[in-house]
């Protein structure tokens, strides 16, 4: 369906790792995007500003991509609004219930050799693959 792009994937992954490392070295924080966002949406006094700055940074980074690498937003597949609403609800609810997403569990947790994060990552890749399988190979043939 898409080309295999290991070099750009590896390069982008290294930037993600560097960003997460800087957050640990300077601020002492683990980068879990779902947790950072949840802390902005349900603020706790004294623990919100750094989160808002990080989320703001993501959007600024997005604007830089839009100028310099517009292909980053060549989504390829964009589900219907109804499917995106369901998907968004599942992602928001699931990441809070499971205490993390691709960044917190998949990158930071696994790199810390956390068994919890390894279990979570295996689980969300498995159910993600199951849904993709159902949508692509069962429902649409």
């Amino acid at each position, binding site marked *: *369906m898409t*080309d*295999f792009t290991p070099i*750009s*994937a*590896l390069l*982008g*992954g290294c*930037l*993600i*790792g*560097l*960003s*997460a490392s*800087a*957050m*640990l070295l*300077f*601020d*002492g924080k683990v980068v879990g*995007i*779902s947790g950072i966002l949840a802390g902005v*949406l349900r603020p706790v006094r004294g623990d919100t500003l*750094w989160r808002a*700055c990080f989320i703001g940074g*993501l959007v600024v*980074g*997005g604007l*830089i991509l*839009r100028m310099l690498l517009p292909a980053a*937003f060549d*989504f390829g*597949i*964009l*589900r219907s609004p109804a*499917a*995106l609403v369901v998907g*968004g*609800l*599942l*992602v*928001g*609810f699931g*990441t*809070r219930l*499971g205490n*993390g997403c*691709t*960044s917190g569990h998949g990158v930071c947790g*696994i*790199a810390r050799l956390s068994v*919890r994060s390894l*279990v*979570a990552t295996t689980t*969300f*890749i498995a159910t*993600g693959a199951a849904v*993709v*399988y159902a949508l692509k*190979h069962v429902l649409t043939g």
Partner: protein
Amino acid sequence: MKACVVSCISGIVFAVGLGISGMTRPVKVIGFLDFAGKWDASLAFVMIGAIAIYFVAYRLIRRRSAPLLADKFWVPSRTDIDLNLIGGAAIFGAGWGLSGFCPGPAITSLASGVPSVGVFVLAMAAGIYLHGLVIGLRRFRIRSVPSGIQIAADA
């Protein structure tokens, strides 16, 4: 204040990393999750790159008694595998596979100005609030039953 500048710059670098790697493109995410089709393994390399850097950095940084701009490290300490972890990850994965977006790429992609991304992010925020509501109700119900059941604090 300095800590917030670091947060902002880290957010920018994180987003650029997501964009370069292909994580902001649902077609790549769904291609990665499509093990039964023409599997696109690219996104495994995102994890390999990020984990390799963070694996080394984490060990070096944790030798310090404190971070540079804060008085302590906030690192998860839980080791229990419970139903919330597995169920939550399963629910998240289903939404990830359905949409092709996880939280970081979705927020970054708001900058594209494409309305569908905004729809996803709003629904994601609603999902986060819904979780808070459900946990609040569960606590209330357990507190009102005089059985002495205690639930673990949410991490």
